[in-house]
């Protein structure tokens, strides 16, 4: 028996939690359970960030990801009242045979690569003037000096996302719908009624079934 240092034991525990929860994300049929499992994965990843001495990133992971983003997901799931997905039949039968082979090949590749890399972390530089690694200070200094342009670009992106999601998710008012209808009529193109694609879909299904 070889003995593992306490750090490696902690890493193995956190990694096992993360992988188990990640499997839960993709295997649960009910999206709300997937969301809860994803929150556990993110918290476990925050633990690995702490082990990598990235305290600020770990905090942001919990606040932004596990907090804000996942609350948005859970909110939408609740809002849309998603039913549990029923089991479906596979359309391609041989995939069940190919998948384990590909999995074993991938696992072999990962083990092969992982065995060849045995780097351990270099000691942290402890010079007096430099801000400590992983703190708000060191990240903020980089963010507002050499990486100012990406930072500003991100803020523009977030503004665009905000406006875009507002435009996409709001309901059209009655007057807007009327103007849109008039415009479509004036253009003289054939109108696509909502019933049409559904009917087409059902025709297609019947064709497939026949």
């Amino acid at each position, binding site marked *: 028996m070889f003995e593992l*240092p306490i750090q*490696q034991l902690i890493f193995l525990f956190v990694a096992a939690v*993360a992988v188990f929860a*990640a*499997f839960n*994300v*993709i295997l649960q049929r009910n*999206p709300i359970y*997937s*969301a809860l499992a*994803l929150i556990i*994965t*993110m918290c476990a*990843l925050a633990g*690995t*960030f702490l082990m*990598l*001495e*990235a305290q600020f*990133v770990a905090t*942001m*992971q919990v606040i*932004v*990801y596990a907090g*804000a*983003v996942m609350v948005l*997901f859970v909110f*939408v799931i609740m809002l*849309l009242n*998603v039913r549990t*997905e029923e089991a479906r039949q596979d359309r391609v039968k041989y995939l069940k045979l190919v998948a384990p082979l590909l999995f074993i090949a*991938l696992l072999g590749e*990962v083990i092969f*690569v*992982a*065995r060849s*890399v*045995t*780097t*351990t*972390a*270099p000691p942290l530089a402890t010079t007096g003037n430099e801000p400590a690694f*992983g703190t708000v200070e*060191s*990240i903020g200094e*980089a*963010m507002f000096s050499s990486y100012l342009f990406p*930072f500003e670009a*991100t803020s523009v*992106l*977030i503004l*665009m*996302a*905000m406006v*875009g*999601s507002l435009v*996409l*998710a709001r309901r059209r008012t009655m007057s807007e719908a009327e103007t849109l209808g008039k415009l479509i009529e004036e253009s003289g193109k054939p109108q696509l009624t*909502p019933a049409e694609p559904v009917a087409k*879909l059902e025709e297609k299904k019947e064709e497939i079934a026949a």
Partner: protein
Amino acid sequence: MVPLSWYLALSAALFTIGVAGVLVQRNVISIFMCIELMLNSVNLTLVAFSRFLNQSTGQLFVFIVMAVAAAEAAVGLAIIISVFRNRETLSVDEESLLKL
């Protein structure tokens, strides 16, 4: 100390699980969550390399990835809501209007 390869292996495992989820799931929201999982595993790689190269710029990229992920989640969920309003379904198999 935990070697770098362990972090990379964990990241690869999570990314693969995310890809498998995108392929397996039929629910748009679940597929979206699998994409978030993949983004998270990439974040782990960035943070690990930032520690092992002793440069904090990697952590800065993680922030940008987080911001992009948050923006993507907001826009994507808005699209999902407006699609659900028109079609009353979340299954990707039935959202094939753009398919010829």
